[in-house]
């Protein structure tokens, strides 16, 4: 009896103290869990966003989780379990749309939740069309494009520079690596099968069009190694396993500039995509405040420009572009390595979110069945 009373009293005391401490400070959590992709990309975020933010907020504990690839599934599972352990999550725009659809991410009000540009331009205008959906806070523009081994180009032939060179086994014999999913591959296939760029998605929406794309891919199927992780293609290129392959432009930049591999960039028909933050729905008040505060800071003009010091992805704000400087350690100008640089962006695609939200599962089923044939 006595013990119980003592225990109760202690508990009450502790709870009281904790409440008092929590009430005394601002209503922001003391720790937050950020989720990203790991590797060089996450490192660039640590350098450009979270380190300066921690400096400003002493005592804040930042935990990084490398789960962005499964973010949607994991957030859904967390939501069902009623225990969201993440505060800010880095996802590609397509996943942000899905999280928004599922009610797993909060809606963002650009005027209130995002910082205006230094010259006073509103965030909404500064990000422009990149504010895809209602929950997504864009961070970078990256692209999926081709790299090739410069030392494997056949003698007497120009280095490959057109997307259709990928499908030209006669002129450029050798293995290719393509992502093990239909997205991007079917667009490129149609483009090289005589379909005009503006018609690609209309054609892909039909059974015949999907078959046409797969038939075109079938012409090189025997020479394709299919990748599923972004690091695969740079590895395959470095090992000389493939002659050319698609991957994210930042990965190729790292292989070329940081590791001095004999690899060239193709850039033609690169597919732009966006990566950015979402804040999970149903966070407790203090963690939500912290998450919003961080995101507002991490997506301001200077921070986005800073990230480009570490990795060759274009900042999502128009106002950040002029601030992009040199690589933090290599000292080379980063602007020419950005997918958005005019020299690189002569012929580009923008990932069609609406189309793929509808057709991803359907075309993927056909694609996988075709692969298994």
């Amino acid at each position, binding site marked *: 009896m006595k013990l119980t009373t003592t225990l109760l009293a202690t508990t009450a005391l502790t709870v009281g103290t904790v409440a008092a401490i929590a009430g005394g400070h601002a209503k922001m959590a003391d720790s937050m869990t950020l989720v990203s992709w790991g590797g060089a990309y996450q490192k660039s975020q640590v350098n450009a966003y979270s380190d300066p933010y921690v400096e400003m907020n002493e005592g804040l504990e930042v935990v990084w989780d490398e789960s962005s690839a499964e973010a949607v599934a994991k957030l859904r599972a967390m939501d069902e379990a009623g225990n969201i352990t993440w505060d800010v999550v880095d996802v590609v725009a397509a996943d942000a749309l899905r999280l928004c659809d599922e009610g797993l991410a909060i809606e963002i009000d650009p005027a209130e939740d995002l910082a205006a540009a230094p010259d006073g331009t509103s965030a909404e205008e500064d990000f422009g069309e990149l504010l895809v959906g209602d929950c997504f806070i864009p961070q970078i523009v990256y692209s999926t494009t081709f790299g090739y081994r410069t030392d494997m180009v056949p003698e007497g032939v120009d280095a490959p520079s057109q997307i259709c060179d990928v499908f030209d086994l006669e002129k450029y014999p050798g293995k290719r690596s393509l992502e093990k999913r239909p997205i991007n591959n079917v667009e490129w296939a149609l483009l090289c099968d005589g379909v005009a760029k503006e018609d690609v998605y209309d054609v892909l929406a039909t059974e015949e069009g999907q*078959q046409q794309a797969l038939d075109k891919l079938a012409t090189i199927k025997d020479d394709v190694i299919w990748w599923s992780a972004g690091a695969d293609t740079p590895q395959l290129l470095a090992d000389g*396993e493939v002659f050319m392959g698609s991957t994210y432009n930042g990965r190729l930049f790292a292989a070329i500039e940081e590791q001095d591999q004999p690899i060239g960039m193709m850039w033609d028909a690169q597919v732009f995509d966006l990566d950015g933050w979402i804040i999970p729905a149903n966070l407790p008040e203090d963690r939500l405040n912290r998450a919003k505060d961080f995101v507002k800071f991490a997506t301001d003009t200077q921070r986005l420009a800073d990230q480009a010091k570490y990795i060759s992805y274009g900042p999502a704000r128009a106002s950040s572009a002029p601030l992009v400087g040199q690589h933090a350690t290599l000292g080379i100008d980063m602007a020419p390595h950005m997918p958005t640089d005019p020299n690189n962006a002569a012929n580009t695609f923008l990932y069609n979110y609406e189309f793929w939200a509808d*057709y991803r*599962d359907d075309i993927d089923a056909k694609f*996988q069945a075709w692969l298994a044939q």
Partner: protein
Amino acid sequence: MADTAQTGPVLAADGRPLKQTLARTLRREKLRALLLIAPLLIFVVVTFIIPILSMLGRSVENQIVSHTLPTTVEALQDWDADGDTPPGEEVFQSLYFDMFKAAEAKQHTQVGNRLNYEQPGLSSMFRSTGRDLDNMGEEFQDALEDIDPAFKDAGFWFELMSGEGGEALLEDRRDLYAAMVGESMRGDVGFVPSAEVAEMLPLTAAAYADFAIWTAIEDEDTVAEERPWEAVYAGLGLDLRNEDTLGSIATYSGPGAEALKAAAANVGQLPQEDLRDMFAASDEDWLDPDAWRIVALYSPDYTTGYFLNSVDLQKTIQGVEARPTNQQIYIKLFIRTLYMSLIITGSCILLGYPVAWILANLPLRTANVLMILVLLPFWTSLLVRTSAWKVLLQQQGVINEILVWLGFVDDANRLIIMNNATGTIIAMTHILLPFMILPLYSVMKTIPPTYLRAAKSLGATNFTAFWRVYFPQSVPGIGAGSILVFILSIGYYITPEIVGGTDGVFISNRIAYHISSSLNWGLAAALGTILLIVVLALYWCYDRIVGIDNVKLGG
């Protein structure tokens, strides 16, 4: 005399029947035993049995459609699904109010995504129309407010809709809402619908009740101070198209009668367009009977659809049909998974048997050292071992380099032993080998070497002695090892993903895809369930043919 004196039951010392006392003691001991294993039992139930059952449940569960679009599903029952006309105005009206409510709770896109698994295009149809629902209602709202500015006023609406006797309506709407969002939605709404108005303006009253519930319980605002949703205006606009309603309004004298009469007198100023046309204007596919057939097919609470999909069939209005050949993949993958697991098990037996035999017959000291060599890879991370195989097997890899250097293989025609079935078999055989060697070793350890010597001294050749005497005694080890290796490899995921390429991937890779990429958890659950059933069936067959008593993991 003495042996006939006692004819009743044998009694224990305390006078109770011995049988009862025995049973009680036994029961008590059983209970104690149960208590001892209770922690494990609870652990297994909570972390294993319940998740598996919930997974099995997901493979047939389909309440999202009927919970999110309840009145639509009901109205759709009268529609002729075999015909080639879209449903009538009534269904679209139900859809409007269901969807409006769902859009407020951000649930409409989830239904869209669910149905999109069955027919591409439905996801964006629900999403884009979800954005237009407000505009559709605003057309009615603007017209009504032009007729009488009182319709702008939150208090006016509250007074008009409040009254007596509408508790049943409120509870109905509350239950529907609770089913949709999966929360109880209990609490004081601060609003009781008027039964009289509800009878006169059924659509308006239902929409207002929804609005009131959502405002009071989810937004925690006061109903009387909030302007109603656009859907309420649309409800009134649609109610006013009804002759009976116009008649009732003429005799109505409660609150708001003036504004209602004004609206009734100026019905011509309200939008006359059918909701069906408004939906079609938002997305023309709403007029596509195929889309509606999908809604109708997947409106029951439970569906066989996921299971049919996982065996390359599909549900149609005419019944079950095979999927188009260019989408058939799962049967193929199931067969491939079983077939390759068998090959892997076979290779493990071939490679593991001699190793286990050597280990079992060497002096203990040497055997222990060699045993570490078997266990060492076993202790290494799976991912590391698989990646190491990648380095060995690729075309510019160690094995090919050596073969080219030795001149066995031409430089231009290097072996392709990775990114295909061969790669998966090689890597998985290596990874699963310890699971074969260990049970074999422990069984072989118990076979006395004297038996072999006896057989030989009786005139058997080496082979006969092995085949007739030694091998039959080691079969239980083979059985145990095979079951382990086979069942493990059926569910393998990471190794096929890394070295499997296209024709070396297993069904588990598709399950992983549906769990983490397509989010089609129902299909993933159905595939998983089938896999589980196949394993259990094979286990049963094994028990019938070989006998599970014949399996030994050790002496």
